[in-house]
């Protein structure tokens, strides 16, 4: 150890000088860029007021998120984590511009879909095999499904004591149309051994530390989920290429489970004879206490269980919170509801802080694991401040809670009722 320490320290110093060197380089290259591009163009359009030269190259790095709606909220820019305000999720099928981004690392660069390869391996395949995207398209039947993808940490911002991580409010959810081949068909073609229990994925993104030998995230699902009809290896979202930040050119998609199981920039699937043990499968990542705990309680790793199906939940997507009505004016409210692997049976709305509820009209899902659209017309009896709360109930009779549900160390699975504010003048 004593011999290694200086090296590590040196490494540390290198990193520090690297940071100051980088900011110097940014200053000097700024002059270069200024001269090359012309100051007015660069600074007027690309440099927000509260950004610094440090941010100029960050701006260049922001190019990959172009195409996302301007009103999405950036929680993090290294790695990119971007959420969608509830009123922007009003579309029945979430467009690419309004799909949230939850990255753990840095997406790959210079992707060539023509040379992209997907390897299927692991101890529980009969023989490893490799496919190009062209081969997948040619060899297997293509399917399209609308699938609800929600980040396990959606709603984290409400937990108290605060949970560590990106502070998602309500917007880490989407339901887009995904097109690809069934994972089941591909696995059957490769051949799975009888001892298979889990699949895991690997993607082409880079760890934040820049270490090429380190996986950013490598999660997965049990075989039963992997073999369901709607489990896709997808190359298209809403009939177009998948957006870069959402996994271009190839992505696993498992509707109804934490979106972290839907591996992006997919280049390898392993079939395992045990629960997959890739990055962010262990410790506290995407796990909740097996038995509920009091807020703030310490939970040892061995008492944390992997999140599977997401809980029942809903959003009010119209109107946007903060709307003012005239007395007597009716309000047509609408939104979506979803329930992990299950269906939503009913959706109720309250304008009196949960004292009474009205039942909304709710549509059947367009396919299994797609969110369901609901609407209701409301009257407001008096002038004043109202909160409209929406509460969905799943096919097993379980409803959303009105206050923040079971505290857990990493702040997952907050499915408390969505609320909007309305004033009647």
């Amino acid at each position, binding site marked *: 150890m004593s011999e290694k320490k200086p090296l590590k320290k040196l490494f540390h110093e290198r990193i520090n000088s690297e*940071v100051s060197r980088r900011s110097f380089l940014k200053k000097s290259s700024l002059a270069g860029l200024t001269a*090359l591009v012309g100051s007015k163009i660069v600074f007027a359009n690309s440099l927000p007021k509260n950004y610094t030269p440090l941010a100029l190259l960050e701006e260049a790095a922001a190019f990959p998120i172009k195409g996302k709606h301007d009103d999405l909220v950036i929680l993090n820019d*290294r790695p990119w984590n971007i959420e969608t305000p509830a009123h922007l999720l009003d579309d029945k099928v979430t467009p690419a511009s309004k799909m949230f981004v939850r990255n753990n690392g840095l997406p790959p660069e210079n992707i060539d879909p023509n040379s992209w390869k997907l390897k299927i391996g692991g101890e529980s395949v009969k023989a490893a095999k490799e496919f190009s995207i062209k081969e997948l398209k040619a060899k297997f039947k293509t399917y399209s499904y609308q699938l609800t993808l929600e980040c396990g940490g959606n709603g984290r911002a409400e937990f108290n004591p605060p949970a560590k991580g990106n502070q998602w409010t309500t917007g880490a959810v989407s339901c887009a149309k995904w097109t690809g081949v069934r994972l089941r068909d591909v696995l059957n073609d490769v051949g799975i051994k009888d001892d298979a229990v889990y699949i895991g994925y690997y993607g082409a993104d880079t760890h934040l530390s820049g270490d090429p030998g380190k996986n950013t995230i490598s999660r997965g699902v049990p075989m039963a989920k992997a073999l369901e009809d709607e489990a896709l290896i997808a190359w298209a979202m809403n009939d177009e290429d998948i957006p870069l930040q959402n996994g271009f050119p190839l992505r696993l998609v498992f509707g109804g489970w934490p979106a972290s199981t839907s591996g992006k920039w997919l280049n390898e699937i392993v079939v395992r004879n045990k629960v997959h043990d890739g990055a962010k499968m262990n410790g506290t990542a995407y796990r909740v206490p097996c038995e509920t705990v009091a807020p703030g309680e310490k939970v040892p790793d061995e008492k944390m269980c992997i999140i599977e199906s997401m809980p029942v939940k809903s959003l009010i997507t119209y109107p946007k919170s903060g709307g003012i009505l005239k007395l007597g004016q009716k309000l047509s409210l609408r939104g979506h509801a979803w329930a992990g692997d299950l269906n939503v049976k009913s959706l109720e709305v309250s304008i009196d802080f949960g004292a009474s509820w009205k039942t909304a009209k709710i549509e059947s899902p367009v396919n299994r694991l797609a969110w369901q659209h609901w609407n209701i017309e409301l009257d407001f009896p008096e002038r004043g401040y109202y909160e409209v709360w929406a509460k969905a109930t799943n096919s097993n009779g379980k409803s959303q809670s009105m206050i923040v549900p079971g505290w857990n160390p990493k702040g997952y699975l907050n499915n408390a009722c969505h609320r909007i504010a309305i004033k009647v003048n």
Partner: protein
Amino acid sequence: MQEDPIKELESYKRIVKSLKLLAWASILLVAGSIWFSFGSPGLDLIIPASKENVIVKKDIQENEDQVVDGIHLATGLIDDTGIELIKQNCLACHSSKLVTQNRMNRQGWKETIVWMQETQKLWDLGESESKILDYLAKNYAPKKAGRRKNLVINEWYEID
């Protein structure tokens, strides 16, 4: 944790190599910009306001460390003792937003540092660690909150 000194040396060599490359790139860029600004006749057509360029450059260099209402603008971090250590040690890998979004007590921040060291390749912070923890625990501590907060309405608007 067992470490492989050869691998470590190799990764160090890689870093030195990329540093050298970057150094050359920066020299080229600086040289290029000087050539562009002063040395190349006829390019005034492309850069009509070179004086303005210089002013903008100066402004922006000053802005880099500008503090408004106690917030260091470039990073969004609260300007307080220890901010330089945060910039050097935390922002080398991740966005400052991962700091500013979170609220933890000293122990929570310490655990986060240990987690990053165990799993995310964060280095030994040495003597800086206690100063970093002082900064984080003071400026990004949890606030008392109930089971559900009041709704925050950014802007009231008329519904048609």
